[in-house]
């Protein structure tokens, strides 16, 4: 009797465990990595900022010649180390790349030759962008520090700070003046690059985060507005010498333009606004429709390849999967596409 029950139990149990557990192999297949030559010319770096709080920022290297993309270059070249949490921007200066890792509060310095880390600059609050001022000096903007940090690039340390209330974003320099956009302030501040002091400010409205110089060395600032206080976005053209606003192109209250950039000749501006918009610098009105419509995609990063003028735009999709990068010609026709890392926010063209 007892034996029979035992047998019955074992039979039922083994049936349940081994037969009902239909088998899908649990171990995911690691995709084979495309080999992309680090030292080649004409390469495109993609900054994959990663999910906020998950420390999965990465860098993708793309070769337009072969259309091969390799995601995870940082880990690959640094013994599988993680880059950090939210890589906001990347910039080449001297023989280094500077990777500004926002939520980790650090800047990772890697060799331009092999992408191996050679230093980490720490002590930031929420760093966003690095702007080289001279060979060994740079400014770093910050979301929460209410100041710009001055960094010594030879010692890789913060050596000073310039009080700058608000959330500072992209910066640009001309005539020894550094223009600092700010999303929380109504002003773009002007800093004297020698004295590190704020000398002036330009009333551009809230929400300014990106700026470029055109071929005539005029400064264009894209101000995103702030709908909580009913301020609409606008695109401004400013004379960096006189600081006068020469042209103000208003957007409507439902638009949210951002990511202003320009091509190699600096004669055409590009920005994202429910698609990729194109504006020749001589124009005095905004384009009525985007050159490339966004559709169901979520455009997140934008860059123009100086080598061929092609437009690189990333689709962050749902922010929790690998981004798709689409490459378009200047007329808006699709050239090709490739897959990068999580939330690709920008491009660095070799």
């Amino acid at each position, binding site marked *: *009797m007892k034996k029979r029950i*035992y047998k*019955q139990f074992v039979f039922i149990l083994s049936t*349940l465990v081994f037969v*009902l*557990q239909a088998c899908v192999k649990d171990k*995911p297949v690691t995709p084979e990595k495309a080999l992309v030559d680090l030292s080649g010319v004409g390469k495109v770096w993609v900054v994959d900022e990663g999910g906020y709080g998950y420390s999965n920022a990465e860098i993708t290297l793309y070769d337009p010649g072969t259309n091969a993309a390799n995601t995870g270059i940082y880990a690959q070249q640094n013994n599988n180390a993680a880059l*950090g949490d939210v890589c906001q921007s990347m910039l080449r200066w001297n023989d280094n790349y500077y990777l500004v890792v926002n939520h980790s*509060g650090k800047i990772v310095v890697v060799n331009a030759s092999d992408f191996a880390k050679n230093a980490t600059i720490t002590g930031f609050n929420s760093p966003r962008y690095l702007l080289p001022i001279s060979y060994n000096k740079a400014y770093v903007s910050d979301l929460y520090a209410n100041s710009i940090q001055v960094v010594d690039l030879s010692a890789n340390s913060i050596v000073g700070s310039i009080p700058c209330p608000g959330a500072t974003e992209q910066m640009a320099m001309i005539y020894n003046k550094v223009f600092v956009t700010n999303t929380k302030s109504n002003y773009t501040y002007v800093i004297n690059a020698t004295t590190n002091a704020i000398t002036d400010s330009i009333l551009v409205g809230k929400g300014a985060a990106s700026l470029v110089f055109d071929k005539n060395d005029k400064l264009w600032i894209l101000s995103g507005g702030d709908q909580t206080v009913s301020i609409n976005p606008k695109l401004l053209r400013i004379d960096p010498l006189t600081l006068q606003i020469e042209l103000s192109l208003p957007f409507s209250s439902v638009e949210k333009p951002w990511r202003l950039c320009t091509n190699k000749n600096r004669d055409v501006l590009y920005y994202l606004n429910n698609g990729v918009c194109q504006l020749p610098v001589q124009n005095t009105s905004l384009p009525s429709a985007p050159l490339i419509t966004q559709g169901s995609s979520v455009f997140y990063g934008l860059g123009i390849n100086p080598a061929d003028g092609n437009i690189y735009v990333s689709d962050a999709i749902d922010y929790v999967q690998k981004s798709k990068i689409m490459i378009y010609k200047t007329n808006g026709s699709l050239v090709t596409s490739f897959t990068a890392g999580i939330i690709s926010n920008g491009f660095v063209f070799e």
Partner: protein
Amino acid sequence: MQRRYYISTFRKAFGLMLVCVCVHHNLQAQSDTASHQLKEVTVSSGREQLFGAGKKVQRFDSATQALYQSSSLADLLASQSSMHIKSYGGGNIATMSFRGGNANQTAVTWNGINIQNNMLGQNDLSLINSILFDNISLEFGGSSALWGSGAMSGTVHLDNKPVFDKGISTKLTSSFGSFDTRKLNTAIHLSYKRFVSSTKVYYISSENNYNYKDTSDKESPNKRISHADYTCKGLMQELSFLAGQRHKLSIRAWYNDTYRNLPSYTAGISKQSQTDRNLKLNAEWLYIKQRYTSVIRAAYLSDVLNYNDSLAFIYSKSNSSSVIAESENTWRLHRHVFQAGANYTLYRANTESYAGDKRYQKLAFFLSYKWSTSDQKLQTSLSIRQEFSQQYKVPLTGNIGTTYVLCKSISLKVNAAKSFRQPTLNDLYWSPGGNPDLKPEEALGYEGGIVFHKTYKHLELYAEGTFFDRYTSNWIIWLPQANNVWSPRNITKVHSRGTETNFYAKYGDSDFSVKWFGSTAYVLSTNEQSLSENDNSKGRQLIYTPRYSIQGGLLITLKDMALMYTQNYTGYRFTATDNSSWLNPYSVGNLRLSYGFSFSTIRLQTFFALNNVFNTNYQVVENRPMPLRNFEIGLSIMYHKLKK
């Protein structure tokens, strides 16, 4: 037009309530036997026990619950069930995932009241202490027809069952553990013939500065969590009265106050902290007359959640509350049980992130019927529930199930359920982005199972196998819109299916027993809808949803000693919706030991817990390391004056 529809609905609802009251009065005319009734009043059964024919239910036995007396509900469920507990680090927020659903799709009830936070639509299980409840059980599968919103993939029931006429007992427990964790709790039970008072007070504090290995940092992998300390204090007071032969009144209050600093796991400094203050009040009046039982419940739930990040200048305060009133009427007529009831809920919330105070009301009607053959071999239950809300249209939900006893030791179960989960107040009103046009998520699922249960002298064998299949539509996800504002939409469709087993073999008697137990879950939960042209998530497993989880253990009791060892395995979990990145599986062992001895009315009990015995370095959530090996040691002093 819409408004008129709701007014007429509310009017109809009020009419139905009147009918219920009239029926109640007619039945009062009948006679009854008093002693039997009193017994029934003291042991009332929950809705899931009455109308859950064909469903899988897992109950934790008292020995197990006793060994987890100083643990959070998250710890108990993580090591004793196949449920996946998504823990954001030791001492940090923990949510649950059942059968491939998310935390919003799992309801938590406290004495029959759905206690999900109405702004978030979920509960933080790390804030709930296991010691507060007499019974903890898991109801698998959709059950909105019984519990309303959120009971889609499963329901966790937390119940207090007052026992009358047991005398006076008190218990004081103090423990000390790794990371400077100190716990103190006390319980006082006064149990008289017609009155029970139960008071539980607890205080927990921890530095929570645990070491971990950062495998992504090759230079200095040994790190220590800082800014993760927490204190948690609270109390639960319960009063129960028996009036006459037919009435029982229970009043309960539960207050919890937790302050914790939230660490930055990913380098950088953290100045984040979170305060949770939760007050839950619940009154329940039970009336039994022969074949009729009436329960009137009222509850007030208030949740305060303050989140600060002084580095980012975020000082967010959220206050939300719910007022719930419910009438439940049950008639037992030989082989038939019939239940009709209504539920009124008022949700309110106030936070800077909403444009002003937000509130809305909801009315629900539920009907259930159970039929069994005279030999109880076949039991069938059917339940339906319709909710009406000013805010969204709720689908009719239902549940139908059968349990059939095939032979003495084997029974078969089948169940089908239509369930829903309503949008949270954040989904509806968050500014910017909240979407007031959201519809509730809907799920249609079915399950079947076989249960083997046999007792032979000192040997008890139990094995249960279940398969389930559920299709969820209108799944709400937040995505950025054309203007870059994140907004929730009903776009995802998810297909969840899998198999589960649950088994134990127990040998012994009250002096000595050995119990070997375990459960397994195999869950495929895949996204069935492409969001956009480039979306690569269709057909992929949902993130943070393990396909395989296995849990097992051994419980040995020898007179006053109990020893339990559990080992859990959680398989790969994807962290990207296109399944391009994942976390490695982990397996964690836990050991618990308790030993007690008595002299006259005083009893001392010592307990020891060794968590993560093999020092496994693991993460449940990406880059949120869990504690390595850690311990807890404690002592309880109990005084029990038995009724003479």
